[in-house]
């Protein structure tokens, strides 16, 4: 792993409310959600993070803001990863979509919307991808009752 690149990236990102730290050998960057698109631009265009690995969320029911939205990026040239993390509230769980930067964001944001109800502003197609039409709620939120079922076929008597 090229520690020099990550160190340069850490120094470059240490502004605008971002607090980059090394965690478990990976650069983790908590940031305000307004800074998301700028940061992704920088990662993609200046530092060559060309692969968008994943977007997911973390639900902290006791905390305000309640959700963390977590992104992972990978550089196929340098073989390093970086993690972005931004917090959103339950009242307004909205972040900017990355579909303008990475085509794979279309599907991954749909999944995150299914499971956590995060809204990606700019992603025009947030239909269910793993769930089905008519499913109420977001099953990976901590307040979804873990035994609640929403069957599509009527059960036999």
């Amino acid at each position, binding site marked *: 792993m090229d520690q020099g690149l990550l160190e340069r990236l850490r120094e470059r990102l240490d502004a605008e409310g971002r607090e980059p730290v090394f965690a478990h050998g990976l650069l983790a960057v908590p940031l305000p959600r307004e800074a998301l698109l700028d940061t992704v631009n920088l990662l993609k265009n200046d530092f060559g993070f060309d692969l968008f690995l994943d977007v997911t969320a973390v639900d902290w029911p006791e905390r305000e803001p309640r959700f963390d939205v977590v992104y992972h990026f990978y550089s196929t040239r340098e073989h390093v990863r970086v993690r972005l993390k931004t917090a959103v509230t339950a009242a307004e769980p909205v972040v900017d979509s990355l579909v303008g930067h990475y085509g794979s964001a279309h599907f991954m944001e749909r999944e995150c919307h299914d499971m956590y109800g995060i809204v990606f502003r700019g992603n025009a197609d947030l239909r269910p991808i793993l769930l*089905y039409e008519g499913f109420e709620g977001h*099953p990976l939120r901590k307040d979804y009752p873990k035994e609640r079922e929403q*069957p*599509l*076929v009527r*059960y*036999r008597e």
Partner: protein
Amino acid sequence: MNQANEKSGAFEYLTTRKDELVGWARKFSIFPYPFVTACCAMEFMSVSSTMYDTDRFGAALPRFSPRQSDLLMVVGTITHKQAPILKKVYEQMCEPKWVMAFGVCASSGGFYRNYAALQGIDKIIPVDVYIPGCPPRPESVIDGIMQLQDKIANASHPIINEKF
């Protein structure tokens, strides 16, 4: 006159009950439709192939159309999203038909107890034989097939019923 064609009177006629005859014929010609969704498929392949060989029970020929099959083998976890497909496949099968729940996920949901997994296919379609195991040993599957054969052999087989 050819001596071999002459009726000797011995073993020229057999008497039997209609249900026994039809049951005997049906139990050795179970054409399965494998509805395979998950890891139990590995065990299904194993039980179908040479070592365990379900052909010995007349249940070797998988039909990949439910309309040609007698036995619906539900192999693996069924999710709520898949349940309408399973129900449709079952409804497309012609009478007489039987259903086998292969493995704990199909039987009861197994260790999946969440928003996604159907808690046993018997919630939506009738099941004739349940095979426990995660996944079941081939011996369990063969035992299940034999129990199903017993069930078929001892059942009544009406030539005409309300469904057919």
